[in-house]
């Protein structure tokens, strides 16, 4: 790999280097093999050649020797002189006498033996000595003795020169061919490279690499493109989520500000006409409504944060479907009346026992019912139907309202989704209701789904929650929707170090025609309780000196107050605090702000 550092960084030059190196190696091996072969066989070839030469000479000179014709013999020998490798030659008669001789030069002459001897002379460097016995028809005529130049060094030199030339040519051809053919390989890579550069330089994820081959590079291009697809999708999702958040913030600001104007108006009315009892009552009702709306919004916000941080925890217990359904129906009652909706309800006759978080499940049904009512025309129809099917609770809320576009059937369950994106939308809320409902249902192990024939054609939401075994225990009659309200006069103690809150709570309780006493710290609260003997005590938790938990324990311990209904009132809503509250003897655990209806529930003796 390091080798490539010297060659260059582009794929093109690396490919070229690979091709040339491969070709060079192959050629080199080939050349060396040829050289070795030549080296090993050249001597034998030259020896054969010299022998053939000697034989030809012998045949030609045979009559000259046989019939003692030196002139003719010299002529035969002279023909050899033309040969480049000729050194010396001699003819001998049958009895071994030298008959004729010829040599390249005087020195070479001495290489020839004076008489034909049985053993050959040792050949000199780069020389070949060959003898040939001339035989004609079985008759020995004489001998030929031939000395030729082997020329091994010159031969090898020539070979090396040729091989070098051939290698240079072949490498040139390989380079030219490779330059043309490698485009098939490097072309697609360079295309991907170019695409990648464009993506990086311009942050443009819509660029795609052209897939021109079916090989690995094609697969790579495909994978690269898919990654870009994915990046694009994610980018789009991010942008959408971001937009949703922006919209949510805008909605939130809008929704939080909406109630403020009526409240300000009401306060203004209270200021300018303090004696107008009817006006004051209207103003109070207006403020109540708007504050409830704001509390609802803030609760939603808290739920959103719980969902997003995964802290939504169920407090499941045995609870009857009918009670949950009733609570939800009760909650939706005001808006149903306001819009004149015809709400028909069908519940199972027998009591259906659920293992669920009643508050959360109520929230789900209430959300669905609220939506159905909100998105219906005035005096429209809404159906709420609960049934047990195959071990499941199936709760359906149907309306004939604005409906849902098919494309949105799934996305409406997303966080901050709004059914109607127009400015004049008559709905209000943060668009978290369905997301919350889905999360709650899922935590119960169930499912929630939406159905709609399309825009303007109504919608139906179906919740399915698995029932515990033996859920439908006994047949019974549907419980009455309304319950007696706590209207009886009771003695109530309020202990809270926040004077404003304490006083406002007290005045609310007094308005409900109760006898109320207020204290602002734990110790004073304890002594007041022992003397006042309240039926109900609202105790703040975080107080200096004696805190709410300790005060509750002491009240439970004291015989004067052991039977009192103890209600914790706190800004903290942590489950751990809730549990601690129960351990300390609290019957109820309320989180500020407190709704008047909740107070009535508690004072009416309803134990959740």
């Amino acid at each position: 790999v390091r080798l490539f550092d010297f060659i260059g960084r582009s794929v093109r030059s690396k490919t070229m280097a690979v091709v040339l190196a491969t070709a060079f190696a192959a050629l080199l091996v080939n050349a060396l093999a040829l050289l070795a072969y030549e080296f090993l066989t050249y001597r034998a070839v030259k020896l054969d050649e010299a022998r053939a030469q000697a034989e030809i000479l012998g045949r030609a000179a045979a009559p000259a020797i046989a019939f003692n014709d030196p002139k003719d013999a010299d002529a035969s020998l002279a023909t050899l002189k033309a040969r480049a490798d000729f050194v010396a030659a001699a003819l001998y008669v049958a009895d071994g006498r030298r008959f004729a001789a010829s040599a390249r030069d005087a020195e070479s002459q001495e290489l020839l033996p004076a008489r034909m001897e049985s053993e050959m002379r040792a050949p000199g460097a780069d020389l070949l000595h060959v003898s040939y016995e001339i035989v004609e028809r079985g008759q020995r005529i004489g001998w030929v003795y031939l000395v030729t130049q082997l020329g091994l060094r010159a031969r090898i030199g020539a070979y090396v020169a040729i091989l070098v030339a051939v290698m240079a040519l072949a490498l040139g051809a390989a380079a030219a061919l490779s330059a043309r053919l490698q485009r098939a390989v490097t072309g697609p890579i360079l295309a991907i490279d170019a695409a990648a550069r464009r993506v990086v330089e311009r942050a443009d994820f819509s660029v795609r690499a052209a897939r021109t081959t079916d090989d690995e590079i094609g697969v790579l291009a495909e994978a690269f493109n898919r990654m870009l697809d994915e990046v694009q999708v994610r980018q789009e999702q991010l942008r959408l989520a971001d937009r949703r958040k922006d919209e949510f913030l805008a909605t939130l600001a809008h929704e939080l500000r909406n109630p403020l104007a009526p409240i300000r108006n009401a306060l203004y009315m209270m200021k300018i006409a303090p004696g107008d009892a009817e006006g004051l009552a209207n103003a109070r009702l207006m403020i109540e409504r708007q504050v409830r709306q704001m509390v609802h919004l803030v609760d939603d916000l808290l739920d959103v944060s719980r969902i997003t941080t995964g802290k939504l925890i169920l407090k499941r217990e045995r609870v009857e479907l009918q009670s949950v359904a009733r609570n939800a129906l009760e909650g939706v009652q005001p808006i149903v009346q306001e819009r004149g909706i015809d709400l028909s309800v069908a519940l199972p006759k027998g009591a259906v026992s659920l293992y669920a978080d009643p508050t959360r499940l109520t929230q789900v049904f209430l959300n669905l019912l609220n939506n159905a009512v909100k998105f219906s025309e005035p005096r429209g129809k809404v159906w709420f139907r609960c049934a047990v099917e195959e071990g499941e609770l199936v709760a359906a809320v149907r309306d004939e309202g604005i409906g849902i576009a098919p494309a949105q059937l799934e996305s409406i369950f997303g966080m901050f989704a709004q059914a109607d994106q127009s400015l004049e939308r008559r709905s209000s809320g943060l668009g978290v209701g369905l997301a919350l409902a889905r999360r709650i249902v899922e935590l119960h192990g169930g499912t929630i789904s939406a159905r709609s024939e399309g825009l303007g054609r109504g919608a139906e939401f179906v919740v399915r929650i698995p029932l515990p075994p033996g859920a439908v225990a006994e047949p019974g009659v549907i419980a009455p929707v309304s319950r007696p309200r706590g209207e009886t006069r009771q003695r109530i103690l309020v202990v809270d170090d926040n004077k404003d809150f304490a006083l406002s709570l007290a005045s609310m309780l007094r308005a409900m025609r109760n006898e109320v006493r207020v204290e602002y710290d734990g110790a004073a609260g304890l002594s007041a309780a022992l003397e006042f003997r309240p039926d109900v005590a609202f105790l703040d938790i975080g107080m200096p000196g004696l805190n709410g938990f300790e005060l509750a324990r002491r009240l439970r311990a004291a015989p004067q107050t052991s039977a009192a209904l103890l209600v914790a009132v706190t800004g903290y809503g942590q489950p751990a605090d809730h549990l601690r509250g129960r351990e300390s003897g609290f019957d109820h655990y309320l989180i500020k702000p407190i709704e008047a209806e909740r107070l009535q529930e508690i004072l009416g003796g309803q134990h959740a």
Partner: protein
Amino acid sequence: LLLRALWAVIFGGFALLASPAAGQQPQEAEVKAAFLYKFPAFVEWPAPARPDSPFIIALYGATEIAEDLARFAQGRDVQGHPIQVRILKEGEPPAGAQMVFVGRESARLVSIARSLAGTPVLIVSEAPGALEQGSMINLVVSDGRVRFEVAPQTAERNGLRISSRLLAVAQSVRSPKL
């Protein structure tokens, strides 16, 4: 170099001492016998009837040559056929011979050639103008060296082929009118 010169002198001396024996000119008859012995190597005969039949060389006259030839040919053969040397008297037919030498002494070359016309017998002679009398190879002495002249067409008429290589060393090649 000095050493080499010294050696050359010594060997030169030896060469001079040896020359009376080695350099002695061979007798003319001996050379002619050697020629006769070597001619069959350059002449093609039709295939003989039997593979083990002898190769017969018949000589008229020329006793000295015949003796030398008999000595050369002792135990030798021509292509597997053992050489037999026969000395014939004047008028005796060369029955079964492949080669006939008509010596200078004989005056019967013409009749011998006629009697052998058409048969594959190589006729060799040593008389001037012998080729015109039907001889195929005629030995001559020129400048003290034994040479020969050849009439290949005469030989061909008798079914013999004389090698062109033999013709190359002949003194002359002729086609005499017979």
